[in-house]
């Protein structure tokens, strides 16, 4: 038992149990749906997971600082529609430029959220509930009820979601999924090793202490919101690529799936703990639920009820079980520190 405690952290146990839950879910759906274990199913789930994951990574940063961003669905929809219109009007536009514009547009909306939260000292729920309505409203007004259609888009964009980056036999690893993986890897390493990114944890786990040691609190919260907006913008581009036909309703309700993914993935709503990989596992869980219930037909209507239940259970188990585990671990750590002989060859571990 002591060995377990020294080598595995409570957060890892949590991610492991979520992983088990995902496997159980796949087995259950596999027994209910004919032909569930196919590459088609995998691809459909993967494209849905990819979009949720990218936004969930940004949301993780915001939640780490004890805030929340409810406007991500509107940001993604806004970006998808406007970049879609732009590309439809200028078919020759450079793909890289299109992606950069998407990210910049999202980041700009994140700047608005971040400034009001950090310097205006308005709670994030209030700000982002407001901008959720504002961004969507501006989009509907400016669009004049027109839609972006697939045939107005250039061929490279239409082909992008089916672009097979790493063919392994019949299994496709498609472009959108690769984008999501790259984002997860970058941010997982960033939040683990970059000193600036570690500050997100510091601000969220103990704001008073962070203030006392002189961390620029406002700037850190601001950066989290801008990053979240930028990633939502990127997700907007992915939505455009995946669906092709974009109405002003694009991305509506995405924030609910994303917040669910983050919370189910073990990012603590009290801030200060949680990992990007956890958020990805959460997104996979949500993606499997959404796509598989859709396949079950009639039970499509069960999706939201299950999602709500899942969030509640995740938050509750974090608060009750994880707290106990953390206490248990802290006690072991304490014992270890009291016997100095065994500490000498232990490397310093960063807590998350």
């Amino acid at each position, binding site marked *: 038992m002591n060995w377990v405690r020294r080598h595995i952290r409570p957060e890892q146990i949590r991610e492991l149990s979520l992983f088990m839950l995902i496997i159980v879910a796949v087995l259950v759906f596999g027994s209910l749906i004919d032909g569930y274990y196919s590459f088609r199913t995998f691809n459909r789930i993967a494209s849905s997971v990819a979009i949720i994951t990218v936004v969930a990574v940004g949301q993780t940063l915001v939640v780490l600082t004890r805030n*929340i961003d409810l406007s991500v669905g509107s940001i993604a929809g806004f970006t998808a529609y406007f970049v879609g219109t732009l590309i439809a009007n200028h078919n020759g536009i450079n793909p890289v430029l299109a992606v950069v514009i998407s990210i910049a547009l999202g980041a700009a909306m994140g700047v608005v959220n971040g400034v*009001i939260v950090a310097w*205006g*000292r*308005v*709670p994030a*729920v*209030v*700000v982002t*509930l*407001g*901008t*959720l*309505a*504002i961004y*969507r*409203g*501006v989009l*509907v*007004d400016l669009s004049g009820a027109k839609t972006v259609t697939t045939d107005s888009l250039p061929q490279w964009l239409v082909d992008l979601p089916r672009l097979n980056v790493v063919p392994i036999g019949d299994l496709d690893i498609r472009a959108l999924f690769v984008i999501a993986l790259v984002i997860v890897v970058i941010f997982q390493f960033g939040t683990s090793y970059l000193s600036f990114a570690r500050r997100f944890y510091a601000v969220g786990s103990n704001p008073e202490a962070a203030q006392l040691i002189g961390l620029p609190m406002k700037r850190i919260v601001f950066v989290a919101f801008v990053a979240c907006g930028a990633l939502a913008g990127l997700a907007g581009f992915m939505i455009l690529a995946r669906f092709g036909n974009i109405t002003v309703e694009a991305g509506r309700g995405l924030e*609910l799936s994303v*917040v*669910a993914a983050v*919370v189910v993935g073990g990012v603590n*709503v*009290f801030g200060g703990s949680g990992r990007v990989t956890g958020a990805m596992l959460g997104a996979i869980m949500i993606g499997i639920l959404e796509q598989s219930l859709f396949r079950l037909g009639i039970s499509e*209507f*069960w*999706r*939201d*009820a*299950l*999602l*709500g*239940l899942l*969030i*509640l259970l995740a*938050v*509750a188990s974090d*608060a*009750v079980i994880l707290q106990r585990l953390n206490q248990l671990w802290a006690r072991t750590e304490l014992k270890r520190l009291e016997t100095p002989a065994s500490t000498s060859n232990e490397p310093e571990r960063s807590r998350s």
Partner: protein
Amino acid sequence: MSALSGLKRWETLLLVVLLAVVALNGIESKYYWGVGNFVNLFQLSIEKSIVALMMTFVIIGADIDLSVASVMGLAACVMAWTFQQGAPLPLAILLALGSGVLAGLNNAFWIAYVGLPSLAVTLAGLIGYRGVARILVEDRAIGGFPEWFNTLGQQALIGPLTLSIVIFVLLFGFFAILLHASAFGRLVYVVGSNIQAARYSGVRVGLVKTAMFVGSAAVAALAGILYAARLGSVRGDTADGFELDIITTVLLGGVSIFGGKGNLVGVGLSLLLILNLRNGMGLADITGNTQNYVIGGLLILSVLIPNLYQEIQNRWKGRKQ
């Protein structure tokens, strides 16, 4: 002292803005001054107004209830579904109210006794209760309620006033007494301004919070039923997104999102202001969509302006010293 005068100043500001909006509306449209338009103005979002009253308690108690709109939808769907299954409508209405109380008890359990943040619990509720409503109704629209039910929802009951408006007025009076002239009301303020102090003084914080959340959900359920009566039919997305208006109304009324501050007079004024704004924009042919994001802007400003004001005041004081 400064907090009190600050509150007074906020309500004065609301009153001035309200009068300005009323005057503008009056100049803008000749249809504005008419009993018909005034009743209409109230009637069009009377359900949101009713829910905002109880939301005031929740926010003064330093919590938030994001699930109210979903509870409205849930109650409407429970009523429509049980009615469709052949139950008499009064029984269906009772069951719908019961479903609201259950939803409130569920919120309260996790928040008051497990100690989870109300934001997370009621966000789960926002998704989950809406989900249950969708399971019941799926993608149908259920209508065909008895004549008396639709009449109650749509026709005037006393003079030009409809049942919903009468209920709103009664509830406003009741809640004003409850919040400002009863022991329970004081407890809500105590819990909202300093929960630790409240605990150490022997206040049963869990019970106060339970009352807040069960009350909030029960009132939301009632509002959902009234909404169904006014529309005459129920769908899975009934009352979707109403939480924006409701929370905006309460915060614009000078209730502090950090808890412990605010009163029903302010909320009443902000209700009138928002109703008149929407009505005025409607008369000026501004679409519902534009109205929505004006409300979103108001939501942010209603917290931002007092914060900035305080900031400026602090700097000014600092300079004087």
